[in-house]
């Protein structure tokens, strides 16, 4: 697969192509900020559970308090990010990835 031609391997040439650069940009533009957001959001939750007991223990209605709602929101955000990523990947990544893959396989022949 790593047939060497004029300059570098097939993969190095593909890596430098605009299509691949765009694919990588689109992938990272979602995955990296999303990771920062969910980690920060989760850490905020854990830190508040440790330090802001009064706030977390405040009753909203009946026996439902802020801590419970905050915890349930972690479920909501996890499901939401997973769904958004799936949507992003199928509309913005998959087609482009197929195109670059075809190019690699063509080049390698």
């Amino acid at each position: 697969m790593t047939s060497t031609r004029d300059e570098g391997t097939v993969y190095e040439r593909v890596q430098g192509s605009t299509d691949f650069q765009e694919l990588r940009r689109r992938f990272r533009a979602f995955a990296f900020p999303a990771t920062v957001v969910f980690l920060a959001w989760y850490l905020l939750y854990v830190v508040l559970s440790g330090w802001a007991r009064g706030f977390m223990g405040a009753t909203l209605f009946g026996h439902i308090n802020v801590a419970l709602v905050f915890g349930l929101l972690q479920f909501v955000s996890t499901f939401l990010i997973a769904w958004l990523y799936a949507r992003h990947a199928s509309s913005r990544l998959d087609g482009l990835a197929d195109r670059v893959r075809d190019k690699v396989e063509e080049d390698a022949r």
Partner: protein
Amino acid sequence: MSQQALSITLFLLFVAATLAITVWASRHTKDATDFYAGGRSFSGAQNGLAIGGDYMSAASFLGIAGLIALNGYDGFLYSIGFLVAWLVALLLVAELLRNSGRFTMADVLAFRMSPRPVRTAAGVSTITVSIFYLIAQMVGAGALVALLLGVTSEAAKAATIALVGALMITYVTVGGMKGTTWVQIVKAVLLMSGAILVTLLVLGRYGFNISSLLGDAAAQSGVGEAFLRPGQAYATPEEGLVGRLDLISLGLALVLGTAGLPHILIRFYTVPTARDARKSVIWGIGIIGTFYLLTLVLGFGAAALVGSEEIAAQNEAGNTAAPQLAERIGQLMFGDVGGTVLLAIIAAVAFATILAVVAGLTLASSSSFAHDLYGHVFKKGRLTEGEELKVARYAALVIGAIAIVLGILAQRLNVAFLVALAFAVAASGNLPAILYSLFWKRFNTAGAVSAIYGGIASAVFLVAFSPVVSGSEEALFPNADFSWFPLENPGLISIPLGFLCGWLGTVLSRERNTAKYAEIEVRSLTGAGAESAVYH
């Protein structure tokens, strides 16, 4: 029929069904791709269920329900880390790993680096993490059967552990990944059905009013509304700052550990494409998330309907809260017979849960032993596929035997910390190596080796001198005291150390592999040259 007899009958039915599947799977296991990766022919949904099966261990099902039942809100807090963790796997690991690896975690590292040192490091780490996890599950199995079947003798517990071990060895050696995956799927369906059934009955009793369920749980708990707030189990006021840091340390290990657990990583190889790996993680997130929401009801339900005193009287850690709740809600709704039947069902489901998880762990460690350590390091790749698979089967036998012996020896010890330690090691050693290798151009052999060994060593070292090993009543060695590290969870220190070691090792070494990085980057993002599925 007594509850014990009914439990055993249901459990034997599960064993018979899974053994039949295993034998069927063995007929369709012809080569290494079948044995290690189930022929890569599972669908996203199937593998998503299997991910749930591998992940929802007895520690989650019984442990978290028990934690909530005894400590209220903090048990729920624990479960959230286990769920959020899956986003790391979804966004950064699953698809890229599927595209660039073949059978084990080491494949991805060996792609760019000098294969022998990184395979050795990855193999050592895989086996370490899996053995920690295995011992915790085995000891749990012994304790569980004692409680549910009413046997108390040490010999009966040891026999149970041996039986669980023998079954897991059979699943792995005979059925390989194909058989093991189907065992996970069956278990996940049973566990979800059991949890949904009990949850609906509990909610039904409270007219689907969560608030009144929580109110009842708080009233029964003896601590009132504080039961519904953080601070009963973790970072209690007496623990001060140390307790709070420990909480963050635990949270970090849970969130960052999952995507470094070897038995989870090899799940991504069992599907035909990276897109199916993505789908399987999304299914997994749906199933695992739903499961922890059910556990929330089970835990508070047990606190409200059984009461913490009765639960703690059975098992100090609350591990029998879910089965006790099943019995109580069955009695309340359908009379004594209903209680007996429901308890029997949940007890059998709990056994199935343990059995499936230990099989997944045994497969991950024996695959890594045969493929990485024996095949590539010891024999330098000069091994036929048939020989390697034979080694994998023997390795499963030996690792299984070790787990049985250690599980029996550790009977009287408090090994609950081993699950958290497995997560900490995975987060400190494996995750930095995987992430650097997928995303950092400069990363090299010295970096990978330092990240893995540095991460494992710092996690294990810190835990060895922490209060969970010595110096407290609940410690592994309660009569000794050589602890000086205040935190029970090493993650807060060991995870940054693992990343730091990986960075330092890299920049101190001259090795660069730009061409190989181009290849892994292009392949991981596009699927070019990825291993394809085989259908027999």
